[in-house]
């Protein structure tokens, strides 16, 4: 009953702030738009700049076939800004054609340059379009990138939703609550249920919107909704935990952004797990994002969400630990 009272009061407090409530409802739309944008921008592709002799047969063979290769874009580069253009990412590499041969300039690693060189040499001899996956490096699928982005986003927004806990601390509500015959556990779980409901609604709207817009993640709608329960539970318990630690919303908001960013980096949101340095692959076990990416990968091959028993146990364990920490801190919090 105590849980229900906290949920009911939080809901009443927020429904009166119409603008905030509307923004909360609009957030999933933003998630979808940003998700599509992030997917498009981070889709593996090569942009190559060309300079030098453009009358040779090698040039004609290579450039013509590159123009017809999927996910490769060709542009005439400025010979004076090669280094700058490769650093800023305008071009992945610049190909300088000589009278008989060509040279490649890039700030990328040797393996990528060698892969590209071998691709171009094959094109020079045999002008037939090939697959370019080996040159691309990262190999994250659309579904993996989208889910990683959604988890990142929900972890940040759930801290905003959980800021009611900070308000309670500062305006004396928590003090009154502690004097009442209720337990710290009831307060935290009540807040958890309320935040879970709001965050799951956001997740549900995002996923449904993607389905309506026909964005295919390669995972069934039901599986996505089931995985959403664990994504939301994790994001919500994380937000609650951060909110119980801090007394100011700014600290909570900045700290959660910092933590989520670090967890995303080591969890494989920006670079596929197998391309990470070995040490970071080991460290990444602490990032929930890594486990959601793993589960997404399995589900895209058709397996059911509940078949990921190990991942479900790990995520549930993380949720439980975060909740226990929140209850402990809430118990110890000074309310004067």
């Amino acid at each position: 009953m105590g849980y229900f009272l906290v949920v009911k009061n939080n809901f009443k407090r927020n429904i009166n702030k119409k603008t905030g409530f509307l923004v909360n409802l609009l957030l999933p739309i933003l998630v979808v738009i940003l998700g599509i944008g992030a997917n498009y921008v981070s889709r593996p592709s090569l942009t190559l700049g060309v300079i030098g002799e453009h009358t040779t047969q090698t040039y004609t063979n290579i450039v013509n076939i590159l123009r017809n290769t999927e996910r490769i874009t060709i542009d005439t580069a400025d010979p004076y800004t090669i280094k700058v253009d490769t650093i800023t990412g305008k071009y992945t590499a610049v190909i300088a054609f000589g009278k008989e041969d060509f040279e490649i300039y890039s700030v990328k690693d040797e393996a990528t340059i060698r892969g590209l060189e071998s691709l171009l040499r094959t094109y020079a001899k045999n002008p037939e379009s090939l697959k370019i996956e080996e040159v691309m490096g990262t190999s994250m699928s659309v579904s993996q990138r989208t889910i990683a982005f959604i988890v990142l986003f929900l972890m940040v927004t759930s801290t905003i939703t959980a800021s009611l806990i900070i308000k309670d601390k500062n305006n004396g509500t928590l003090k009154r609550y502690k004097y009442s015959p209720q337990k710290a556990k009831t307060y935290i779980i009540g807040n958890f249920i309320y935040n879970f409901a709001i965050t799951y609604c956001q997740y549900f709207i995002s996923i449904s919107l993607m389905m309506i817009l026909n964005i295919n993640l390669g995972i069934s709608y039901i599986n996505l909704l089931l995985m959403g329960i664990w994504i939301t539970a994790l994001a919500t318990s994380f937000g609650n935990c951060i909110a119980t630690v801090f007394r100011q919303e700014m600290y909570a908001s900045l700290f959660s952004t910092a933590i989520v960013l670090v967890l995303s980096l080591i969890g494989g949101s920006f670079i596929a797990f197998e391309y990470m340095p070995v040490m970071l692959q080991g460290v990444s076990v602490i990032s929930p994002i890594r486990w959601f990416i793993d589960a997404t990968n399995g589900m895209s091959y058709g397996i059911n969400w509940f078949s990921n028993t190990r991942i479900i146990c790990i995520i549930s364990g993380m949720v439980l630990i975060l909740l226990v920490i929140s209850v402990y801190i809430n118990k110890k919090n000074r309310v004067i």
Partner: protein
Amino acid sequence: MKNFIPIFQMEMKRRSRDFFIIFYNIIFPAVIILLLGYLMSKSYGTEFTSYEFYAIVIPPFCLLMAIVSVAYAAQDEKRMKTAFRFMSSPVSVVELVLAKFTSSTIVLTICSIIILGMAKLFFHLSFHGSFALVVFLLFCEAMAVTGIGLFLGLACKNFFMIKNFMNLPIMIFGFLGGVFFPVNSLNPMLSSIINSSPLTWVNRGIIYSIYGGNYTILLVTGGMFFLVGGIAILFAVRLFKREEFI
């Protein structure tokens, strides 16, 4: 302006001891440079390392994130319940806002200089004689960040709603500005979206001046930030909400 100096000194002390300003502008960027640099080390060669790339793009990003810290710093008096004293003392709004503006700008610039120094020392980032120009650009960015932060904190009625969502556009600007990995496109529409991020121009300005010897983008971007900072602070003074401050 006789009241400006003591308020400025007090604000300088407060800002230089502000844990979150120090954390977000020195410790956090250093950790992220290390982490991202290590994470992407396999994707870069030896001529230009991933550590050098992230030492260039992370400090301006963290500086932009300071908008939220400054917006809260603007409300220090409200939080410490000393706003009544300021309101009844013969301190003008201009003196109060300018003291906050100059102290925050100076502290943020010093933090940026420290992180650039660390980048030079630990990540072997060579500035090729452009160090002063990079500092100038970060100073101008600090001005714009402080101006906007003070405007949000002192003059914005819906501050409490805005501050919660400030991190989102900053993260989007960071992503579009190529903070996490180089982002660029030859597609005109995508290219104009990328160009809408101020961090795109900051990063381009720094990279062009260090590796291309071309200072135009850096100076123009710096000038734009200077202008934005000036306009924001004018608005902050003009629209200062006394009742919000208390």
